[in-house]
């Protein structure tokens, strides 16, 4: 190939200079990106390579389905709990176990707290350094920084003295020569555009957010005992409620609920007074990034729907964020998504390090099948005899990520997809949130389909989640006040009550997007377990038809100031909030046997 046009409408040209970024850092897991740039250093071809594989599904075979949540929760410790939630839902679906209302509310509270936490940490600790030059903050005027901060927010920590202290802290760090996590950053890169004062403010909030984030997750600890990796339960939640009588200190009681309510208040304060103002301030200096990095965003978006307001009801009438798909950018039509329909979700492996009986055919997750087959294609460079891989051959197999497709289409999932689908579905609150934000930045709706559009949608969803979190906490309290303290349905706890065979599917919207688990239960044990996760959709390699996935598509057309310093690539890829441990463990029902590595 020199130049080709993919069926989903992208022009790829791999004739120019090849650049590899490995490891891509400030993500979860291991990812490699390769691009070809033209004579003007504009990206013309992109290759997304998932470089780790853990094989959890064969490990699940033969286990007790009630235990599955604990295994799959260990798929990811960043978006902790999302796999556990999808798992208990899948088992409850298979065994037809309805959960009590309080259990639904508590799950919503835990999941909303995760959304708020995860989006906040992503913005400050995984993404901000793509936009914020830490070294530039040294030349800021603390007084001007204070004025800037006070002009955009009523957040109290904004005095000249405060910013002066933070600046001293950075000075010491830089002066010591031991920069720690800031070592070898791209400081001074021409793509950094913030004035020193905005940089100093953002660095101060980087530190504040690092300190504050640990508060948010205490909500998960109250109901789940710990975070990361709280405890879950098939049939409800493990934490019992007792607010009135003796022994209340051994259960969810008035003190516990007060703690949760207080943290929910603080979370909303921090997000509305720090995160959102910073997001807007930073974005206003990078408006060109509302045009770069579109990829699939303006074409195909999908959400499975999340936050049921009614327990055991997964219709759009119940969901706070609707399920649906948008195709070819047509916001007037939201397509129905049915994850159990064998003709909708398929996974392909022609370009993945797995083998199907027929690599050209896709398989529904319930019929998923995978044998690992690691090999480097004939045009790859390096990787022989233990040498470093210099270049991956994308015409052959090239990633541990499969290529999932919805009705044959490559889809983008995540906060942008959820916000746009809610917007298109007529959600007045989301429309107001999006419209008012775009108005402040003087941008059209189409600006959402971009690198910073993704980042902005995530921030707005963080704010949305913090508000819904407060509502759900209030709901739990009012239901308890009304005398409802049930948290678990144990009618079908014992395996003797189960049918000899059952199959189920459980979905959730994780912070990074649509997540599905499919399982078979036979004789009380897991017979087959399959996950298709958000980053599998977004970081997908090519499919047999040649359609490229969201990461690869979004990098096309992005100009680089200096290909040796891949700041622009980090911006685009980080806007998706990659989670590679999630994406690259996938394996089907008989995938236990491994072939030895063949390096061609």
């Amino acid at each position, binding site marked *: 190939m020199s130049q080709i046009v993919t069926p989903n409408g992208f022009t790829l040209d791999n004739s120019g200079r090849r650049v590899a970024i490995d490891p891509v850092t400030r993500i979860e897991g*291991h990812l490699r990106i390769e691009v070809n740039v033209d004579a003007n250093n504009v990206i013309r071809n992109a290759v997304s390579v998932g470089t780790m594989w853990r094989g959890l599904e064969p490990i699940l075979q033969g286990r007790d389905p009630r235990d599955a949540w604990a295994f799959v929760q260990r798929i990811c410790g960043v978006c902790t709990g999302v796999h556990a939630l999808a798992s208990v839902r899948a088992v409850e679906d298979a065994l037809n176990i309805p959960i009590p209302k309080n259990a639904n509310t508590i799950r919503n509270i835990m999941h909303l707290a995760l959304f708020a936490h995860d989006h906040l940490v992503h913005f400050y600790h995984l993404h901000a350094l793509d936009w914020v030059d830490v070294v530039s903050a040294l030349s800021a005027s603390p007084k001007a920084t204070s004025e800037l901060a006070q002009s955009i927010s009523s957040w109290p920590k904004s005095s000249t003295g405060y910013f002066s202290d933070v600046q001293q802290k950075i000075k010491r760090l830089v002066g010591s020569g031991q920069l720690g996590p800031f070592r070898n950053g791209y400081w001074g890169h021409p793509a950094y555009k913030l004035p020193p004062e905005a940089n100093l403010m953002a660095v101060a909030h980087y530190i504040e957010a690092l300190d504050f984030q*640990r508060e948010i997750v205490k909500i998960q600890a109250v109901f789940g005992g710990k975070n990361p990796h709280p405890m879950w339960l098939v049939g409800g939640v493990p934490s019992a409620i007792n607010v009135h009588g003796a022994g209340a200190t051994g259960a969810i009681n008035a003190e516990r609920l007060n703690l949760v309510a207080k943290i929910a208040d603080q979370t909303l304060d921090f997000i509305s007074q720090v995160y959102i103002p910073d997001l807007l301030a930073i974005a206003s200096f990078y408006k060109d990034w509302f045009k770069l990095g579109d990829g699939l965003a303006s074409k195909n978006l999908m959400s499975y729907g999340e936050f049921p307001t009614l327990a055991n009801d997964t219709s759009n009438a119940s969901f706070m964020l609707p399920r649906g798909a948008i195709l070819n950018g047509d916001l007037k039509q939201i397509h129905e998504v049915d994850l159990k329909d064998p003709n909708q979700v398929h996974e392909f492996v022609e370009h993945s390090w797995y083998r199907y009986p027929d690599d050209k055919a896709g398989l529904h997750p319930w019929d998923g099948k995978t044998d690992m087959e690691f090999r480097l294609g004939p045009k790859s460079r390096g990787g022989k005899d233990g040498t470093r891989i210099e270049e991956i051959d994308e015409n052959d197999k090239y990633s541990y990520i499969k290529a999932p497709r919805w009705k044959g289409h490559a889809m983008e999932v995540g906060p942008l997809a959820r916000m746009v689908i809610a917007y298109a579905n007529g959600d007045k609150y989301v429309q107001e949130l999006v419209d008012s934000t775009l108005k402040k930045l003087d941008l059209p709706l189409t600006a959402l389909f971009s690198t910073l559009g993704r980042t902005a949608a995530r921030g707005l969803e963080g704010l949305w989640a913090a508000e819904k979190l407060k509502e759900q906490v209030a709901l739990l309290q009012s239901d308890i006040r009304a005398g409802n303290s049930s948290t678990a349905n144990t009618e079908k706890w014992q395996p003797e009550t189960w049918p000899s065979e059952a199959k189920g599917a459980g979905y959730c919207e994780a912070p990074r997007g649509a997540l599905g688990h499919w399982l078979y239960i036979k004789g009380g044990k897991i017979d087959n377990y399959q996950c298709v996760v958000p980053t599998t959709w977004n970081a997908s390699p090519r499919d047999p038809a040649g359609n490229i996935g969201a990461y690869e598509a979004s990098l096309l057309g992005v100009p680089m100031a200096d290909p040796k310093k891949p700041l622009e690539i980090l911006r685009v890829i980080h806007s998706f909030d990659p989670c590679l441990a999630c994406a690259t463990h996938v394996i089907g029902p008989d995938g236990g046997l491994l072939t030895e590595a063949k390096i061609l």
Partner: protein
Amino acid sequence: MSEKHETFYDVICQRGVSRRDFLKFCAITATMLGLGPEGVATVAHAMETKPRIPVLWLHGLECTCCSESFLRSGHPMASEIITSMISLDYDDTIMAAAGDQAEEIIHDIMRDYRGAYILAVEGNIPLANDGMACIVAGRPFRHQFDEAAKHAKAIIAWGTCASSGCVQAAKPNPTRATPVHKLVSHVPVINVPGCPPIAEVMTGVLSYILTYDRLPELDNQLRPKMFYSQRVHDKCYRRAHFDAGQFVESWDDEGARQGWCLYKMGCRGPTTYNACASMGWNEGTSFPIKSGHGCIGCSEEGYFDRGPFYERLPDMQQWGIESNADKVAVAGAAALGGAIATQAVVTLTKRAMTGKRLKDSGQNNGNKVGDGTAEEGKP
């Protein structure tokens, strides 16, 4: 080594922290490490004189829950540690640099701080398929790990993945995921198990090393004794209900609402060595049992193969509910005698091993000998 050795105290002073606040911080650290009043001066002295030690934090097959837990630490806070106590020069999860710029750091630290940096490893190393189930910088993670391990002062194996395997090493362990200590021979390894470990245990181990300039005393599974020498059951606030025979029999039953013992719901507290029940999670907010779910034993080797999690541990002895204080005292003395006897064997065994690290502690379940009352949960 770098010429400029800035101490923790230098940094903290220049950040406008008063001497009084500094000593307060030292007191909290001393208390956390169980050092008593005289320990404050030791901590303060160390903080005043020791340079920031470079830390390379590598990620193998893992889920990043250890990093996330570390960031949750309340005392000291992660921001304090990263800016003032250590120099976290490489950590894929938070570092600004990527690709070549990131890899360059590892080489620079290995060159400039040979034998003087700490290697922290999150996750484990897959050996199947020539190690290609985890590729970093175009090579098997095994290569990056081997090189960094060679010249480290010490290696901290964060979490159960790095310590003993965790979920990807559960049967049939498709990638042959292998814990750190099995692949290292000349550098001391400290296992800090848990999925993840408790945040303050992680920062406690680090600050101990910095404060005393030595490694913590380890048990035969290479775990710091200060945090892993007692079972969750030993310090559980629901222990009295176990002794009284008051058990949760079904989820959300009256016993659950009263906070009774979760033993019958499969709790692994009796066979799990960790500090959850005493230190709590998320700055003491809770721990699994306090939130109504049994311990699943996430800090124990092979815990995923010791299920099902909701099946109770067999043959646990407990005080009958009809016992009076005298009977309990007599029974207690007898049980204690047995426990002391078995504990003595363990102590002797451990003493024999003092000073040398067990090459493969995974084969040795010496700690289980001391259980006295507990059997393995495997049906």
